[in-house]
């Protein structure tokens, strides 16, 4: 494939994103507009924007790579990414919208009437956002290296710089438009190549015959029960606490609209994930040589050119590169919006200028981390972020919405426990598994034990602290669960 194709696709997506970002600047003026788009976004727009924000490097490149590398076990990732929205619908969507808060720290502070809880939540939101941006930048590095031959760092720096500029200049209003656009771009960018490749595969001889390409040892029956269950706990519950996803729910006009939006998101994601899955299946039959940990994530970028050399292959390659860049840009910018929102409100007084400074700061840190760390598989890295989120923010959100007895001390104890346990498993994983190989699955997929422990600590400490239950608990819970006044 020629590098010109890569350059053209990357520049086109970057230009369109920046243009839409600046167009949005004209209609985002007041602080409230800037943060949550005045809550005037319609369910379909909102759902597209959530999809655009959510479908990251892990979804666009990582899933196909993982199915190629590990087989049917990789299919659990998109299932979990999608079903997470079911959990969000069931437990969080409408109450969170009705809470009237802007961000997760706003919510926990209002619910528990404690500034200390707010601080802890803010730190977690920032850490989660940064952890999640890192694999996006690594995906960009991989894409640039594979498609243009430029050094990896160019991709990371380009995405980080674009995101900082677009977020700092447009705020969330424009981001809603950008994100909605990005979803449909990503869907087209992966669906069209898959359909085209399926059409030509009749004429091309597979590298491997079906029984070798899809051996039972990699099939659905070979699943490792503990790892799969733990991964599902992480993905299903982690979605509840993702800061860049939750902030979208404040742009729904009311609780029922928040529910409708979530159902549409489920449908959009289900349609989208059919295509990376198909890519992975195609890869197993037609590109088995890519099934190595370093190369598998590039499957989506490389396969069109392999099966369809010539102009059509170049065009399809340009399309998938554009889609991949849309994925890095949209997820990173969504994360930067929420991280910058938290930093600017808590440290810089909540002004628009503070938000801009924070936007630059919150892209710089993950960039440094992306340089400092060795890239692992994209889907796996994002899966660990979900495990961390599920162990920290998810218990507080769930108990805060559904349990009267939650107290500030309980919430802080639970978040600290979850962060310590899952953080140790993620950061110290290599050391721990080297010392005790027997507990390797427990460390590599920690959610199944860290989430229950975090919930338990939250509940026990809240129980012991019963006398400090916030005075306004009942009124706040009523506010979360009662239908809106202006709906009848």
């Amino acid at each position, binding site marked *: 494939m020629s590098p010109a194709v890569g350059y053209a696709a990357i520049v086109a997506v970057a230009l369109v994103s920046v243009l839409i970002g600046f167009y949005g600047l004209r209609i985002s003026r007041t602080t409230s507009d800037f943060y949550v788009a005045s809550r005037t976004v319609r369910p379909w727009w909102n759902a597209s924007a959530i999809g655009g924000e959510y479908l990251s490097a892990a979804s666009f490149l990582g899933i196909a790579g993982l199915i190629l590398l590990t087989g*049917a076990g990789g*299919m659990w990732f998109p*299932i979990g990414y*999608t*079903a997470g*929205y*079911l*959990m969000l*619908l*069931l*437990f969080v969507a*409408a109450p969170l919208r*009705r*809470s*009237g*808060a802007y961000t997760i720290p706003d919510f926990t*502070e*209002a*619910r528990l*009437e404690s500034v200390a809880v707010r601080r802890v939540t803010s730190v977690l939101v920032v850490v989660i956002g940064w952890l999640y941006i890192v694999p996006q930048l690594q995906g960009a590095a991989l894409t640039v290296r594979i498609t243009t031959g430029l050094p990896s760092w160019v991709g990371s720096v380009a995405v980080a710089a674009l995101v900082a500029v677009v977020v700092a200049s447009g705020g969330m209003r424009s981001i809603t438009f950008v994100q909605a656009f990005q979803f449909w771009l990503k869907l087209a960018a992966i669906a069209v190549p898959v359909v085209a490749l399926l059409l030509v595969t009749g004429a091309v001889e*597979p590298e491997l015959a*079906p029984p070798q*390409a*899809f051996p*039972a040892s990699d*099939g*659905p*029956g070979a*699943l490792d029960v503990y790892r799969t269950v733990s991964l599902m706990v992480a993905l299903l519950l982690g979605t509840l606490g993702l800061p860049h996803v939750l902030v979208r729910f404040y742009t729904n006009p009311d609780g*029922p609209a928040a*529910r*409708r939006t*979530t*159902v549409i998101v*489920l*449908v959009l994601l*289900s349609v989208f*994930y*059919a295509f990376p*899955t198909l890519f992975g*299946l195609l890869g197993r*039959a037609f590109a088995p040589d890519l099934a190595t940990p370093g190369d598998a994530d590039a499957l989506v970028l490389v396969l069109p050119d392999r099966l369809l050399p010539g102009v059509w292959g170049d065009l399809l390659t340009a399309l998938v590169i554009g889609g991949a860049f849309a994925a890095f840009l949209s997820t990173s910018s969504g994360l930067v919006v929420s991280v910058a929102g938290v930093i600017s409100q808590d440290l810089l007084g909540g002004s628009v200028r503070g938000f801009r400074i924070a936007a630059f700061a919150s892209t710089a840190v993950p960039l440094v981390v992306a340089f400092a760390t060795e890239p692992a598989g994209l889907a796996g890295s994002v899966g660990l972020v979900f495990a961390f989120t599920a162990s920290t923010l998810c218990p507080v959100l769930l108990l805060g919405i*559904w349990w009267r007895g939650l107290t500030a001390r309980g919430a802080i104890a639970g978040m600290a426990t979850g962060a310590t346990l899952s953080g140790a498993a993620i950061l110290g994983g290599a050391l721990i598994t080297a010392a005790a190989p027997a507990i390797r699955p427990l460390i590599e997929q920690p959610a199944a034990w860290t989430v229950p422990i975090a919930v338990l600590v939250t509940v026990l400490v809240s129980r012991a602290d019963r006398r400090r239950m*916030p*005075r*306004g*608990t*009942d*009124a*706040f*819970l*009523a*506010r*979360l*669960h*009662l*239908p*809106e*006044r202006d709906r*009848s």
Partner: protein
Amino acid sequence: MSGGAPGGDEHAPAAPPPRVRVTAPRNGGRAASDRRPAARGRRPGTDTGPTDIHSVYVRSLIRSQLRLALICAGGFVLATVVFVLAVVAPALDGAFVAGVPVSWLLLGFGVYPLAITVAALYVRAASRNEARYRSLAEEE
């Protein structure tokens, strides 16, 4: 699934309950804070609100919504487990469609419709719970 609400449903039309105090039933969150903007800044939740029959209705709404959410989540997990057990049945490993084993195709594409179905059922039932609360509150 029908919580504490149906009890009230049966009694209310025949013999109105003796309580008299009525406090604008549908003033959920916003109205309450609008009425007392000065109370401890803009923080929601500091308004203690009425403590009589209204709060009983609220608690029963929260309980029935929680029960509904738990049933739906459990139903989805159960349906997925049953589906996967059926998928991994050895008979399916040998069957190929378009060169891909049927078991792979089912796992790759079959769970999503389950999630969407549960979501659609939940939205209808959750709105019903809210409508029931509203009619109870209005009858007061």
